[in-house]
Every structure is written in structure tokens, then in C-alpha cells.
């Protein structure tokens, strides 16, 4: 199972992301956006521990979630997925 971070533009979109993933039976949680992934200061992100990242991407795209990015956590930090 891998750890992914989905960055979104506000806490509202973070909630929306969790809701979309939950509807697709994918567990996730809201976290403060990790340093290095920030765009212009504070923000929120959604952490997903999954081996079904393809389903995550599809679910968010289908829901037309705007301006999100998915990062994969590796040994050396986060890599844009």
C-alpha cells in the first residue's frame, strides 16, 4: 500500500475530495498541506493510503474536482504522480 497526498485549493475542496472518495469506498483523511507542496502559503490536502490510485484519479476526474494534484510519498519526499 502506498501513501498519496492530494493537494486541493481549500478546506472545502478537501472535504469534497474526502466525500467523493468515500462514495467510491476509498478511505482518506484531511491533513494540513505538507511543506514543499504548498502553493502560496497555508492549505489543506487529503492523504490516501491505497493500492488503488487509478480509482482515486478516476473518481476525482469524474467528479470534475478542480485544480488538484496527486503526490506519491517516497523515501526522498513527495513526487508528483
Amino acid at each position, binding site marked *: 500500500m502506498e501513501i498519496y497526498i492530494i493537494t486541493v*485549493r*481549500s*478546506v*472545502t*475542496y*478537501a*472535504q*469534497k475530495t474526502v*466525500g467523493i472518495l468515500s462514495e467510491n469506498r476509498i478511505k482518506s*483523511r*484531511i*491533513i*494540513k498541506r505538507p511543506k514543499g507542496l504548498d*502553493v*502560496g*502559503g*497555508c*492549505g*489543506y490536502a487529503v492523504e490516501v493510503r491505497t493500492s488503488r490510485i487509478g480509482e482515486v484519479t478516476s473518481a476525482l476526474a469524474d467528479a470534475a474536482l478542480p*485544480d488538484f494534484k496527486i503526490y506519491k510519498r517516497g523515501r526522498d519526499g513527495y513526487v508528483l504522480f
Partner: protein
Amino acid sequence: MYYFDSAATSFYRPYSVRVAVNDAIARLAGYGRSGHTSAAAAAERVYLCRKSVAELFGMSNPERVIFCNNATHALNIAIRGFSRKNGVGVISCFEHNAVSRPAYACGRVAVAEFDPYNEDSILSSFKGLLASGVSLCVCTMVSNAFGNILPVSEIGAMCKKRGVPFVVDASQAAGTLDIDVKKLNADAVCMPGHKALLGPTGTGILLLTSDMLPAPIMFGGTGSMSQSRDMPDVLPDRYEAGTLNVAGICGLLEGVRFVRQNREGIFKHEALLCKELRAMLTGIPRVKLYYGPEQMQCPGLLSFGVDGRPSEEIVQALADEGFALRGGLHCAPLAHKRMGTTENGTARVSFCYANTLYQTVKLAEAIEKLANQKNMI
């Protein structure tokens, strides 16, 4: 006390509203700033409320539900945010001061005058004013003073055709009438949380229903994009500077849930009580009722006067008998001017889901007794 002032503020709120507010004060932190458990729980409740409000009004994007302090706050964002320098604001002759005051503060205002019970008269009045140079049009969905319903969808269609931003004040309609914002042709719809949505005071809602967005009028922290000097361009953050009223919104969530489960029943119940009251008061000498045809009248509200007496005296006398009503101009001087009731105002009965027929009969008896007295005070 029998409470008939729900058009001002709901009083008989569902128990779940009180529990939610208490729980929020005991357990929840602020919204949208921190990431710990209490803040996350607050964010979740706030989002659930956005979602529930969006669903009640036929919207698919909860982020377009902006939380405000009250309807006045929401109307100020919409009116001041859409107004242009040297532009003219068109408003109806039934607007509350929450509309007319910000509109006048922004510059020139043209007031649409019409017969409130004649749709052709209403539409032709707006049509005549929606000329070039108009920067904004605002119309109430239901008059807070007289309960007459205005054809906002049709007015919105005229505005849309002319590219004029259209703002609807749904303060008296939200929670009572069936509202699908997609059918209103509006760009912004404003409402309080503390009236028929049964939430606590200090809650209001602005629905942004089109791609035409007002300029923000308040600036400050949002917990997002902190390095930017400007307000974020993302909704709802763009219009929600400062910490939200989390406890109030948690209460509002429960109020909205109650309304979603019971709206049709509430409508029928209020319509029945209002009809009964009208029937009981009709024919009583010296009592004058103000209402129009059923299809143009919101069922939860009835204005009346007694033989030219000041409405404040009427409601005071009724208060002494244990009935809570509102008298005066109801912050709607334009409406009273149009109806010829400026001098004495009107006494207003407004119902909610919890009023009973027994209370209504008692109120009618008290009004009749009052009307038969030569000197009330």
C-alpha cells in the same frame, strides 16, 4: 407566550438545533485554519451544512454556498460586490432595508413601482427600468411585510437577457417555498439562517448561482493561499474572511435537515393556519387584512391593522395577552408606502411549523376582543 413572529426570527427550533450548538461549543474548534482533530471535526460539520443547503436549493456545488452572519451580510456582499460606479441599481417597491440601504449606499437607485397582485404590472415595471446603465437588479421573493410573492424567475430572465446581475432576497421564502435556484435565473440568492431554516441567529447564506461573481467586500484571513495579498479566487474562501460561526452553522445544519425532511408539511401546515386565521378575522368590524390571491401569497404570513390604530399599540396590547407579533414598518418602508400603511404600519402574524390551531384560534379571539375595545391603552 404564543409566538407568531417567526418571520423575524424562529423561536420554536427543533431540539436537534440546540444539541448541535451545545455540542459544537463543547467539542469543536475553529474552521479552516488548523489540522488537529477538533478543527477537522469543525470543518466536516461546516462542509456537511454547505452540502445540505446546496441540496435543499437544487445546487450541485457546495462550495458555492457562502456562510454569512445574516441575510443583510449576504445582501451586502452581492449588492456592493455587483454594483458599478455610476451604475443604477434597480430594486422593487417591496424591498427590506437590507436591500435598499446597501443599494442607495452604492449610488443611484430606481424603484420598480407596481400593483403587487398583478404579474403583468410587476414585469412591465421592471422591464421599463432595465435599460442601459443598470448595473444590478435586486428583488425580494416574498415581501416580509405583506407576504406577497414576486415573480423573480421572470424578472431574472429579463436581467439575464440584458446581462444585468440579478440578486434575489429569499429571506422570507427559504425554508417555506420550494426553491430550485436553477429556475430563478439569479446570480446570487441571499437568505438568513435564523428564520424558516430554523438555525440560530448569527447565520446567513449567500448562494452564488452563476459564473458572474461579485467583487469581495471583506478582506482577511481564510486559512488558504496565505502568501497572496488578494483574497483567494477559490469559493467559498473568496467571501469568507475571518473565522466562521461554527456553532451557529452546526445548529443551522440541523435546522436545514429538519426543513428538508418536512418542508412540504410545513408549507401545508402554515397555509392551513393562515387560512383559518384569515377566515376568523374576516368580517370583524374595524379589522383590515392585507393579502392577495392565494397563488401570489406566501402562506406563513398575514399583516393586519385595527381601525387606523398604530400597529405598535396593537402588538403591545396583544403582547400583554401573551401573543408575540411584530408591528411597525418591518424595516420595509417602501412596501408600506406602496400599500398606504406608512402612518400606522401593520401588525404581522407569522407562523411556523410548531404553531397550532388552538393558538391561532386564541389569537383570533384576542384580536377580535381588541377590535371591540374603544380605547386600547
